[in-house]
């Protein structure tokens, strides 16, 4: 009974800010205004499956996957270094990983906008070093860079927390039994960190596939991901029905990928 009482505020919070809005999304997605009344319709949902919008969804998935892969490739070694016995300055590095997150996400993304400009800081430095200028602003590369930059800590931290918990005697045992460092990593360390990797993948993939700010700022307005598409329906064209249908589709997609990933993990641990 006491436990239930304590969970009361949380339940209320969930009801008001998660369940109710979710219900509204479903409601708007499945109804349309007709002669002053809202009537059931599948028109919004069927519009989601028109090729032009499926292309947008595919582009969002592709970019999110690429960004997640980059985050993994960059993040895993960092997490390894953080937990390495030979590395003595863990706290400083952890602070360095977390520090950017103290600043506003929007402000940091805006900074890239000016850094990447044709006459921006990066090109000035490249010119000074007599290197060719790069023009990646408003392209896939800029959007992926923005995603990796913003979401990398969400990959590093869960991996770090699982690596940190690995029993060192297992690694020592592997070494004693003559395993090379690579074999130790492959057979002992990596399998035990899998839970953290999956948490990291989920935590990077979800915000990456739904972002609209990064694609808006670094992709330049023409760069439409599903997040932008949804934003546009609510903020510009005032078509809440279609916007809700897109959101519903996206939620279904995320739930499916999420549950597949969670099931394949099986073990507990990490942040999920």
């Amino acid at each position: 009974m006491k436990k239930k009482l304590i969970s009361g505020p949380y339940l209320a919070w969930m009801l008001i800010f998660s369940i109710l809005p979710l219900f509204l999304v479903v409601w708007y997605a499945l109804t349309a205004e007709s002669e002053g009344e809202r009537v059931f319709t599948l028109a919004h949902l069927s519009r989601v499956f028109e090729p032009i919008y499926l292309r947008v969804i595919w582009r969002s998935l592709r970019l999110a996957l690429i960004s997640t892969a980059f985050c993994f490739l960059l993040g895993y070694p960092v997490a390894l270094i953080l937990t390495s016995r030979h590395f003595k300055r863990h706290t400083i590095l952890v602070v360095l990983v977390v520090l950017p997150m103290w600043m506003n996400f929007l402000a940091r993304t805006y900074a890239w906008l000016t850094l990447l400009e044709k006459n921006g800081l990066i090109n000035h430095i490249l010119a000074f070093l007599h290197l060719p200028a790069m023009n990646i602003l408003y392209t896939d590369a800029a959007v992926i860079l923005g995603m990796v930059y913003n979401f990398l800590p969400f990959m590093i931290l869960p991996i770090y927390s699982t690596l940190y918990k690995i029993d060192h005697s297992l690694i020592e045992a592997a070494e004693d039994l003559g395993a090379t460092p690579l074999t130790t990593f492959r057979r002992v360390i990596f399998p035990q960190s899998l839970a953290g990797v999956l948490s990291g993948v989920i935590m990077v993939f979800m915000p990456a596939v739904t972002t609209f700010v990064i694609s808006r700022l670094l992709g330049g307005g023409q760069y439409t991901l599903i997040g932008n598409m949804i934003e546009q329906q609510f903020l510009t064209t005032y078509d809440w029905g279609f916007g809700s249908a897109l959101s519903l589709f996206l939620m279904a997609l995320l739930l499916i990928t999420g549950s597949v990933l969670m099931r394949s993990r099986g073990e507990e641990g990490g942040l999920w």
Partner: protein
Amino acid sequence: MKKNRIFCVLLIAAALLAAGCGQNNAGEAETIIVYNWGDYIDQSVLRDFEQEFGIRVIYEEFDTNESMYAKLKAGGTAYDVAFPSDYMIKRLIDEGGLEKINFKNIPNYSLIGDRFKNLPYDPQNEYSVPYFWGTVGILYNKTMVDEPVDSWGILWKEKYAKEIFMLDSQRDAIGLTLKWLGYSLNSKSDAELAMAQAKLVEQMPLVQAYVGDEVKDKMIAGEGALAVVWSGDALNMMLENEDLDFALPQEGTNIWVDAMVIPSTSEHKEAAEKFINFMCRTEVAARNCEYINYSTPHTEVLSGLPEEITADNRFYPGEDDLSNSEVFDDLAAMLPLYDRIWTEVKAEYQ
């Protein structure tokens, strides 16, 4: 029983929350919420208004008429003064979204030029007080463009690939394309609109970005050769960078008027009227004009401006200069088609 109790807790929580939202901040100064375009006021006039009238101003900004409309429609915030453009004012009037202004409380309205009264969007002058007006044209960088700029067609030239900034605004982007094709920017013909859509899709690979206010930083920094901008912004950018110049295409363009209105959600109509009247005071309007550099409809401010600006028919075009230009109409029943075209153009990006 247990379940019931949880339900009660939830109900009470919801009730408290609702009560909290509806609470009035009694004892505090009256507050009005003003909703204006981004970077479209000399912010110091807000402080002066607060001091003089003892009314607190919460100032919020929007970037397109459409986003302003969506926010007004969604409710949530009870805006007291908003600054939409002509066609959006018409739409709001038709949908009952605006309060009639009591012009007895706006004596300074007499200072607004007659040319800006009785316009089609508010034919009886009941709902709106003009703030600034202007046109849409092409800003270009003389070091990158060496041909005369006199047609919208230049925005489709391969030569300027990735050097073009388009306005990220539905009506403007579709409208100028229609103008270039020789149609009305209020076209209601499916065939004409389909052609405009095809042209916009064709143009997309040449466009560096679809932008709002960012265009100012970009063009001043020389990041592009051509940009579709509002006339007032053009003047500002030319003052910042001498290489920039501005042209109104010969096919004609859009003439717009941004005006102050009182949304029907307003809870402080008299305070809102005081604010509107204050904004029309010559000294205040002059400060705004000096800061924003847009074309003013205010007769006394206009007569105080330097001759070289008021004589420039790109920034103060006479009625003859605008013979083939048009004001945006509210599209009413055609609007969903425009929305769809814009959504599809944006989705087309490869």
